[in-house]
């Protein structure tokens, strides 16, 4: 039979470390069950994969929520599925953490005394490290990462977690996945961490395909992912090995709406605090941002 060649780009996201040998069995199953010829590429950064998708060098991708937005907007992509967790949860959580010995015992304390606090933040495109906490933790409480703290050090999740475990930073953002990994690898270190705050649920990581894939291919893919690891214990083992997943669930671009809202909100904040922009520019930009936000609100309301 005619085997269509597809490239599948997989990145290490916020919530998973994509290990080739863990994904490969799934890819093999995919090829076997659909008759497609799917080649997997594992990358440490999403930028390359998104550009590749834009130029049709990659047809399917596994992204984080934030990067999926880019894939959808930039690369003619469409969210068609997302992973499910074993625990049954449909996502993970952003956290604010500190060392057990630190004098900060609650999130309220932190919010009140933010001027005395050094904050370890996520890298700017991180969903759980930056977007979620700036919106749900800070903005909702009238604070801003840039101006309300003694200092803000944007870095990676691992670096933040390490700094907290060794009491080298007052508080830092992180996520449940990271903490679970730490718990599994170094239970003793895990005990050093106190969770101060937990965000609302962040939808789990999505699968994106190019919108212009032939319908037949799309159908094959969808039926594979819909039913994968439903019953077969071998398949379940494969899914679990990847990152504690239990299977896939249908999804759509709608999953990205809350993330988009946060991203736009952040953008708005940036524009407002930009000292070098003229007032007129600011106004027009804010107006367009507000309009986009309200559009999203209506979408979300549906």
């Amino acid at each position, binding site marked *: 039979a005619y085997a269509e060649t597809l490239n599948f780009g997989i990145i290490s996201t916020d919530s998973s470390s994509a290990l080739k040998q863990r994904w490969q069995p799934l890819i093999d199953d995919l090829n076997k069950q659909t008759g497609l010829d799917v080649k997997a*590429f*594992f990358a440490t*950064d999403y930028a*390359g994969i998104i*550009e590749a998708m*834009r130029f049709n*060098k990659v047809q399917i991708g596994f992204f984080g929520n934030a990067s999926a937005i880019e894939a959808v907007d930039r690369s003619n992509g469409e969210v068609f599925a997302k992973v499910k967790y074993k625990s049954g949860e449909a996502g993970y959580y952003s956290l604010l953490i500190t060392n057990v010995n630190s004098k900060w015992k609650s999130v309220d304390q932190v919010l009140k005394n933010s001027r005395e606090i050094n904050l370890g933040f996520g890298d700017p495109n991180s969903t759980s490290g930056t977007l979620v906490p700036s919106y749900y933790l800070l903005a909702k409480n009238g604070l801003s990462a840039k101006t309300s703290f003694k200092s803000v050090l944007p870095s990676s*999740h691992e670096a933040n977690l390490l700094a907290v475990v060794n009491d080298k930073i007052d508080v830092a953002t992180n996520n449940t996945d990271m903490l679970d990994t730490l718990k599994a690898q170094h239970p003793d270190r895990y005990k050093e961490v106190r969770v101060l705050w937990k965000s609302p649920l962040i939808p789990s990581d999505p699968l994106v395909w190019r919108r212009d894939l032939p319908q037949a291919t799309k159908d094959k893919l969808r039926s594979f992912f819909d039913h994968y690891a439903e019953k077969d214990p071998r398949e379940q083992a494969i899914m679990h090995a990847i990152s504690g997943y239990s299977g896939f669930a249908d999804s759509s671009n709608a999953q990205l709406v809350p993330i988009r809202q946060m991203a736009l909100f952040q953008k708005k904040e940036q524009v407002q605090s930009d000292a070098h922009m003229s007032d007129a520019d600011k106004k027009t930009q804010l107006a367009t941002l507000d309009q986009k936000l309200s559009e999203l609100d209506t979408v979300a309301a549906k």
Partner: protein
Amino acid sequence: MNSVDASRLGSTSASVASKRSWASMLGWIALFAVLGLSWQSADMRPLDLLRDPGNMVRFGRDFFPPDFAEWRTYLHEMIVTLAVAIWGTALALVCAVPCGLLSAQNIAPVWIAQPVRRMMDACRAINEMVFAMLFIVAVGLGPFAGVLALWVHTTGVLAKLFAEAVEAIDARPAEGVRATGASGLDEIVYGVLPQVMPLWISFALYRFESNVRSAMVVGMVGAGGIGVVLYEAIRSFNYAQTAAVMLMVIVIVSLIDLGSAWVRERVI
């Protein structure tokens, strides 16, 4: 009379020398000023190192004993990495030799050397990720895009190092070749290359080695390789595996270093 002579000569020379030492004094002052100014921006707190040395020890202990359970994967990925590095370096070498010669001020006229140097500066300065993406959109994900990205960057580095080795040669042998009426090319082949060969070989192998380590690009473009494995091990706090991978990299780097010494001794 002679001692008078000597002291007079000594004094005139002393004034020349003092002029020189003035200049070098200024140089040192400038250097320390820059270091001092950077001290704050770099937030230097050397004493902090002494405050929590226990942390480092505790952290370091997690790396032992290294966990070689997955060594087959590592080996396989290492081979991919080596292959990409070999081709990236080989292609770069081919370009760096002419570019390096053309940007050496004692070989090429200034109106060629300067533009070539600036081009090489750009090759080094433009982010590897940008090159990687440039090549991804042309050839798709995979090792080949990694090879191309490494190629451009390595060309920039090697051409610079090659050129500066050429600028430091002893001019006499090259002049000896020139004296026979040889062409510029002959002068390079017979007068310059034999002199710079040991250094060029060591540069090329250094860049090869550093391409083996430069996992970022290769990993970013989905070429796999040991670098991706390493990052994943670090990011999942799996330090025993990290140590295992790093040991392999150290062995490879040491082998390349030994090879470099061997080749330089032998071929030259």
